[in-house]
């Protein structure tokens, strides 16, 4: 059994994550229009996709340009299964398995190719699949685009109440964690300035969480009545996002993750130590394919699925952009990168004159990041942020810098 103090310790260590998750959970109450919820849903979905690409590229060091295949396969399968009347959970599981399988097939086909050749070959396979799907559908005289029939879980209000309970649990645990942090620091710290600044900081956070939670409860009726589908889709994406993020974090910290990094850093040495590189790369392909399957499965419920959106090489490009922007191999970085990319795309993209400009800005941003911050946002923070944090701490302690 886990004792209460151990649980508190776990909460304290993961405070930022708990806080952030509860912030996301109360977001629908803070949003001023349903469109903002839609934007955030898209951001979460592409965050999952970028996460899967980061496992592949950042952890295992496989540069694949065919990563849109598991995404598209999952999107089509989910659309098909849901329209046939299967429950969502089955569609999701099938999508995950088939996403992993499709990535494995690509990996096995391309296993002889190395480096650049692997990139070209995977791109070619993905493009072949896209054009084939389009042409076969045209040949059979059917339209290749599918409008997904939403599952009953998305339409029911019970799902919303479940999310409400989850949100309150998270908010309460966030409050407990911040109280615990402040109280334990009272014993350890003698510096009053630092302690009081921290206390004020946590009080503001807690107040904000409580405010959001109350707002959520107060707005409950309007949220359920007017925008059930939007809000439920958002919560579904959020829950799956949190689950996949936790899963990715656990995988990366496991022995498997260490071997991936060894293979990435020095394949020859890893092979000399007795690791079969291909097998570990296939593990990475399967796991990232499964996670991309989750993203594709959710994606199919937000828009009409057609070959150009589901299998477009620009999907891979978007994930790559997010990974480079956020910092390869940092997990949270690519998620943030994907959020930035999607936010720019959706907010600027909703204005017709600026939709092309937003992509141009992204391209420029990407080039600048590669040239100036080769480690991305989070990577640079990990490398260079230490100095900044030390400086802040010294300032708080009132010493000379």
């Amino acid at each position, binding site marked *: 059994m886990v004792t209460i103090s151990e649980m508190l310790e776990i909460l304290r260590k993961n405070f930022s994550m708990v806080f952030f998750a509860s912030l996301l959970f109360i977001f629908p109450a803070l949003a001023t229009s349903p469109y903002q919820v839609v934007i955030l849903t898209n951001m979460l979905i592409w965050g999952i996709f970028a996460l899967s690409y980061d496992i592949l590229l950042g952890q295992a060091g496989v*540069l694949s340009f065919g990563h849109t295949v598991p995404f598209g396969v999952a999107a089509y399968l989910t659309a098909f299964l849901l329209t046939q009347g299967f429950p969502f959970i089955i569609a999701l599981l099938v999508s995950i398995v088939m996403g992993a399988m499709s990535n494995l097939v690509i990996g096995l*086909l391309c296993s*002889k*190719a190395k480096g*650049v*050749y692997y*990139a*070209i*070959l995977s*791109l*070619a*396979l993905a*493009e*072949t699949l896209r*054009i*084939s799907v389009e*042409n076969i559908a*045209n*040949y059979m005289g059917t339209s290749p685009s599918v409008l997904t029939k939403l599952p009953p879980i998305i339409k029911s209000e019970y799902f919303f109440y479940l999310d409400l309970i989850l949100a309150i649990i998270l908010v309460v645990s966030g409050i407990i964690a911040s109280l615990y942090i402040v109280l334990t620091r009272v014993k350890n710290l003698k510096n009053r300035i630092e302690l009081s600044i921290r206390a004020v900081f946590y009080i503001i956070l807690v107040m904000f969480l409580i405010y959001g939670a109350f707002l959520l409860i107060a707005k409950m009726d309007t949220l359920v009545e007017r925008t059930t589908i939007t809000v439920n889709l958002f919560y579904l994406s959020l829950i799956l996002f949190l689950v996949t993020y936790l899963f990715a974090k656990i995988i990366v910290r496991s022995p498997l993750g260490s071997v991936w990094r060894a293979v990435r850093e020095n394949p020859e040495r890893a092979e000399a130590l007795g690791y079969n590189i291909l097998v570990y790369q296939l593990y990475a392909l399967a796991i990232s394919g499964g996670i991309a399957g989750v993203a594709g499965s959710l994606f199919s419920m937000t828009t009409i699925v057609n070959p150009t959106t589901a299998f477009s090489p620009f999907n891979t*490009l978007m994930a*790559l*952009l997010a990974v*480079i922007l956020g910092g390869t191999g940092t997990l949270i970085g690519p998620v943030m990168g994907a959020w930035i990319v999607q936010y720019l795309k959706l907010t600027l993209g909703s204005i017709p004159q600026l939709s*092309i*400009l937003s*992509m*141009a800005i*992204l*391209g*420029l941003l*990407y*080039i600048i990041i*590669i*040239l100036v911050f*080769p480690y991305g946002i989070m990577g640079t923070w990990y490398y260079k942020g230490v100095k900044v944090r030390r400086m802040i701490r010294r300032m708080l302690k009132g010493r000379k810098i």
Partner: protein
Amino acid sequence: MAIVITPGILLSAILDGLAYGMVIFLIASGLAIIFGLMDILNFAHATFFMLGAYITIHFVTYIMKDFILAILITTIIGFGLGILVEVVLLRPLYGKPASQMLLTLGLMLLLLQVVTLFWPAGLVFPIHSYIFVGTIDLIGTRIYVYRLVIILIGFGIMLLLDLFLTKTTFGAKIRAGTENRELAQVFGINIKLIFTFAFALGTAMAFFGGAIASPWLNATVEIGTNFTLLSFVVVVIGGMKSHRGTFFSSILIGIIHQLSAYFLPAITLVIDLLIMIVVLLIKPEGIFGSKE
């Protein structure tokens, strides 16, 4: 839909294929030289080609109705842009080929957007003189004169490039850098200069190709994205590093592409990609390439 294969249609398809192959060659040869020398897979190369087509048509439409001058200016702009990109963007990343490749990918994205920003609807070649739209009769089929001109130009460029790379000192230096970069440096070759020049040469050739192809293909965003894949296919089949292999595989892929476009239009690009996939799986060094 039954398609009657007559000798005339076959001839027309093959000539179209040859011309198409020449256009691909003008893109892919630069790609192969850059990859061989600098180890960069330049994703932006076909977008340079597209930009060349846009600039040429823009020049001919709005500034001066002189096609030869337009080609010249486009090529010079291409050379300048090549130097600029190499010095400003790629030079800071020497020694990191993966980053360089990702950078060219960003450049591709940027150029595609810039082009749609300036010319949202694409451009159509405006001049309708005999050389561009005229036809001649060959065994009962009408063949566009301009396709024959493209074929001639393609062979000419191949000849010039081959002479340049095999007979001049500068070409020898490029080949030396391709064979062994460190050894070339040891022998006193300024490898940075060679890199810049080779990249600018490749870019200029892509721009030149865009200028030459613009009366035929006009200027759209699609030619940028389509030729990216096609030029990769050609370079992979040609053995990645040799311009001669690229020449033969360009002709091969051009003819196959046009034959399938004439007779099996639904799977045109798929056939090209499948050929490349099969070649990569069976003989990864390419049909015309040699094992190192």
